[in-house]
């Protein structure tokens, strides 16, 4: 079975239809909405497999189907779909993980009376995300990209009657939009300089050698190549969407959405859009741009891992771990190995989905207790969740050989090590490896080991099958995805056949294994050996370095920093605009009006004294004359007639006598 590119639009269309069905079903129709959503995703998954088969048949080709959107000037504005291995892998991943999330949601959301809306939004999200993946035009990608943002806004703010949720949704939308402005500008610049936005268009697309060479040749300010500037502007969009430093602040807040499903959406799939975008436009990126991307990624990876160490909310730990992992992916792109980035993206999607769903299962079981200090001892009652969560944790931590995360992280570190420009990102990545292993161990130890510290965790019970089955499937996948890289680097060959697989990374592998061991070991030493007694007892690490942990716990004070700078600036600008209106322009208008009124006043005085005076005198004399004449009106009709007759006689006489003379 294979799906030609001409029909690839069916894949995003299906969830869109499901969203439409969800929107129009009446309030109670959760069953219909969820069935439509899951059906669309499952069908989409099979179609994606067909698309993958098509793509793998010609791995080096970028099959496209372009079409005209509307007339513009002499030509038309064209959009299009593309089907190549990277898109096909993403399609399969999104539909597969998406379907599992949807199934999980039926269990998780069954108490919520607005669940059908939830499925509607989920379907919209999936549709937009799939659209991003197969878009063959930066414009179409941007459209879907914004729709992803909308869907995430709706999902984060799903419980909108909670003010925090509403605020978090707004924050997410605005923050990503800041990045999107960069993307928009980049897109505009690209369109302006190439006259097209299609990625692949039979030699005329912007990612094809002619256009890229042209862009590289143009220099703009500071001697930078035009493609560098455009690439960095596009990267801004990715920074916003993928939660990279410094626009990562929205991602942890996004955990206000329905726990943990929308969190999972954001962590596992949506944020991947940024990485995917950079992988998609990789041909445009110049070494200069890549440097920026690599350092941004490295900083994000390290920062996310550091902050995660000091978080107590199970979802926030996972959220910051996501930030950190996304940093890894960006790092991979920056050091030139976009294949490693995509590989890590795929594996991360599965094991992070596993972790989030596991966390959801825990939260669901523990009656919405999310603080790991209040949990504990869940290993006993929740065996399936524990086992699958452990697999996810090991995949994330990079426990060697068996788990997919190890291989993908290894690929990234390998690429970073081979980067000629600087080794600093490599060392930052290594540090993050230790930290990742450390905080994941802490999470495991606090949540599942020890004894139950609150009422909620004491009465925890295993989640229903609709939630555990997806966990098991994801756990299997988290392991099985190792096959993409081992025993042979198959994915590498498919995605980028030109790059030769480098061997001889054994030393590096040993190094990272050692680092993982250090991380897990120290984590276990601090948190696992002697478990927490009470929910309120002090954190052992915080007891030792209180200042550092407090700083990290407050998320390095980024929110405060922005509140003090960006928000203030924004508010100041708004105030200035308002004051300008109120006091400057309005005052000018009022002044003008006053001048007009003054002129009117002057005019009136002149009128009254000069013109009116003369007029009044004339009127007075006229009235007197009238009075005098009126006395002649005796009311005697005979008299009038007589006067007329005599007057006539006199007149005739005068005329006649005058005529004689």
């Amino acid at each position: 079975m294979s799906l030609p590119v001409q029909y690839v639009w069916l894949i995003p269309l299906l969830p869109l239809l499901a969203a439409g069905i969800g929107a129009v079903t009446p309030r109670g129709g959760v069953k219909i909405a969820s069935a439509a959503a899951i059906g669309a995703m499952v069908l989409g998954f099979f179609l994606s497999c067909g698309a993958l088969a098509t793509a793998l048949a010609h791995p080096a080709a970028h099959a496209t189907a372009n079409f005209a959107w509307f007339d513009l000037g002499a030509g038309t504005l064209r959009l299009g779909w593309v089907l190549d291995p990277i898109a096909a892998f993403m399609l399969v991943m999104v539909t597969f993980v998406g379907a599992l999330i949807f199934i999980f949601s039926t269990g998780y959301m069954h108490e919520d009376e607005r669940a059908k809306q939830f499925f509607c939004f989920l379907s919209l999200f999936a549709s937009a995300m799939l659209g991003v993946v197969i878009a063959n035009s930066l414009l179409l990608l941007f459209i879907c990209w914004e729709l992803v943002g909308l869907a995430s806004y709706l999902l984060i703010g799903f419980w909108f009657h909670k003010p925090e949720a509403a605020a978090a949704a707004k924050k997410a939308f605005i923050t990503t939009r800041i990045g999107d402005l960069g993307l928009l500008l980049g897109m505009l610049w690209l369109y302006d300089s190439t006259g097209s936005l299609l990625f692949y268009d039979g030699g005329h697309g912007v990612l094809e050698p002619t256009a890229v060479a042209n862009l590289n040749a143009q220099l703009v300010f500071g001697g930078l190549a035009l493609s560098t500037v455009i690439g960095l502007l596009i990267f801004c969009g990715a920074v916003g969407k993928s939660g990279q430093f410094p626009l990562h602040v929205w991602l942890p807040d996004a955990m206000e959405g329905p726990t943990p499903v929308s969190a999972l959406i954001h962590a596992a799939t949506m944020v991947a859009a940024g990485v995917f975008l950079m992988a998609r436009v990789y041909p445009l990126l110049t070494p200069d741009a890549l440097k920026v991307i690599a350092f941004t990624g490295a900083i994000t990876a390290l920062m996310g891992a550091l902050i995660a160490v000091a978080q107590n909310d199970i979802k926030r730990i996972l959220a910051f771990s996501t930030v950190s992992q996304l940093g890894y992916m960006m790092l991979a792109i920056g050091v030139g190995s976009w294949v490693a980035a995509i590989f890590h993206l795929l594996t991360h999607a599965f094991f992070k989905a596993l972790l989030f769903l596991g966390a959801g299962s825990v939260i669901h079981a523990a009656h919405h207790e999310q603080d790991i200090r209040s949990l504990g001892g869940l290993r006993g009652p929740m065996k399936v969740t524990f086992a699958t969560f452990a697999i996810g944790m090991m995949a994330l931590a990079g426990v060697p050989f068996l788990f997919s995360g190890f291989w993908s992280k290894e690929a990234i570190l390998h690429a970073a090590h081979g980067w000629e420009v600087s080794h600093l990102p490599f060392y930052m990545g290594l540090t993050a490896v230790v930290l990742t292993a450390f905080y994941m161990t802490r999470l495991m130890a606090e949540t599942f080991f020890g004894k139950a510290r609150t009422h909620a965790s004491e009465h925890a019970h295993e989640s229903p099958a609709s939630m555990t089955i997806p966990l098991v499937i994801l756990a299997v996948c988290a392991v099985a995805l190792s096959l993409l890289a081992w025993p042979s680097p198959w994915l590498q060959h498919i995605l980028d056949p030109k790059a030769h697989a480098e061997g001889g990374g054994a030393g590096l592998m040993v190094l990272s294994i050692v680092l993982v061991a250090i991380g897990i070991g120290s984590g276990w030493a601090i948190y696992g050996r002697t478990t927490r007694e009470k929910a309120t007892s002090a954190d052992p690490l915080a007891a030792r370095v209180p200042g550092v942990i407090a700083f990290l716990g407050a998320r390095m004070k980024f929110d405060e920093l922005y509140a003090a700078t960006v928000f203030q600036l924004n508010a100041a600008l708004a105030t200035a605009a308002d004051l300008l209106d109120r006091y400057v322009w309005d005052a000018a208008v009022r002044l003008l009006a006053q001048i007009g009124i003054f002129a009117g006043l002057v005019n009136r005085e002149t009128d009254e004294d000069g013109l009116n005076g003369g007029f009044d005198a004339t009127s007075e004399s006229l009235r007197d004359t009238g009075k005098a004449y009126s006395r002649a009106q005796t009311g005697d009709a005979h008299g009038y007639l007589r006067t007329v007759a005599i007057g006539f006689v006199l007149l005739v006489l005068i005329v006649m006598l005058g005529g004689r003379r």
Partner: protein
Amino acid sequence: MNNLPLLSLIIFTPWIGAALLAFLRGASVSVTRTLALAFSLAPLALGLVAAAAFDPARTAPQFVENHLWISALNVHYRLGLDGLSLVLVLLTGIVTPAALLAAWRQEHCPRMFGALFLLLQGAALGVFLALDFFHWFVFWELSLVPAFFLIKLWGGASGRGDAPATRAAYQFVIYTIGGSAFMLVGFAALFVATGTLDFHQLAQHGADGALAAKLGASGVRWVFLGVLLGLAVKVPLWPFHTWLPPAYAEAPTSGSMFLTGVMSKMGVYGFLRILWPIFPAQLHAAAPCLIWLAVAGVVLGAYAALRQTDLKRLVAYSSINHLSYCLLALFAVAYATGRNGLHGEAATAALSGAILQMFNHGLSAAALFYCVGVLESRAGGKRGIGDFGGVRTAAPLFAGLCGISLFSSLGLPGLNGFVGEFLIFRGVFGLHGAAATVACLGLLATAIFLLTFWQKVFHGPLGPNVGGALRPDSSSATDPSGHQAPPTPNGFADLNAIELAPLLPLVVLMFVLGVYPQLLAGLINPLVTSWAGHLVLP
């Protein structure tokens, strides 16, 4: 069909309806409302007939009617329809019935209300169809009269006129007339110099430099400034916009819908139809300055909206912001006129974007004003941003439709607003990159204030005017899970069928035009392409 004076019919059918209403003294309220609605729909129907017979490939005006009117002044009664006019006629045809439907519950003398509205509609249609300055100006000024009375007599918090409404009405009319007075003087000068008031002939004079030869360079400059002032006030161009927020805020809901949906377009239309063709060289010379005024409108309009607490003023400022995009596009085109290089495509995009933006803003701003009107009527005249909260819980359907309008206004792809804004930015970036970059800030601020609006009014716990006081024990705001059912509202009803009627068509159009902009683009593209093909200076 060929002999039918279609365009005159479009203009005068509403006026016939207005006259009918004015004389139907004894008719019942429902009859007058139905009549008004029927007559306001007639231009839409006729406009669709025109659109069906319209040949987009011809760029000259079609369905031309030309009769000598006042021979002493060489005034012709000349009407014509090209893509730009057609788009705006359709917009007027859509927005007016929606506004009348919005006033369906309006009890204060609905007969005169309907009559004035139809008068307003006919005048606006006349502006969009006239090809001769004389009756163009008549229509232009005539539109002020019903607008004045609508604001003064039906405006204000009570819906029956009060002191602020009266003040706003006077300010609106005097400000606008003050602007048009300069325009009238300018055209008088043009008439003296050229002996014609025909737009097409004037444009030819302007293009081949005959105008400058007759009036002298400085004379033309003064005339240009006069006309510019008249149009700038109407649009409004920053900083001539201070009349707009009070007028829009004090007008009745349907009045605001029409003001923003149609009347603001009259100004932009004037820029495209009069100022640009007749004074290309002067506009080009002034463009470097005007561009930054438009950018100021985009950015500062959005930021000023951020500070508004009155929802109507907020939407009014968003109108300033959105209309400034149209002007930005035009000024950028004028700025780049006559230069070499790859400007044709960018100019086409900018102008197409401006026209699409006019239509799209008409839809979304009218819908937004309507939504604010619904909120206001539910809350008994209150419309502060803090007077609500949790409306989405109480009225999900209303919230959904209002949300779509908001996102349309915000320029979300997939809805109508995006296409126009994208094309404008694409064009302006190619013509004047710095302006486009700064204007991007406006996009961000727009998103911020619209989402703040949405968040404060629709989200959060039920607010004071939505469901009354919350039961303190079961407040879902303090529930960490948020899993419990939201408290049941009592008092804020969702939309009923009549209230849905004005909003639904607008929202459906937002979707349709967002996904398939070819519907409009196909009508205007040849026209815009030919405009962009003649960007030469005399």
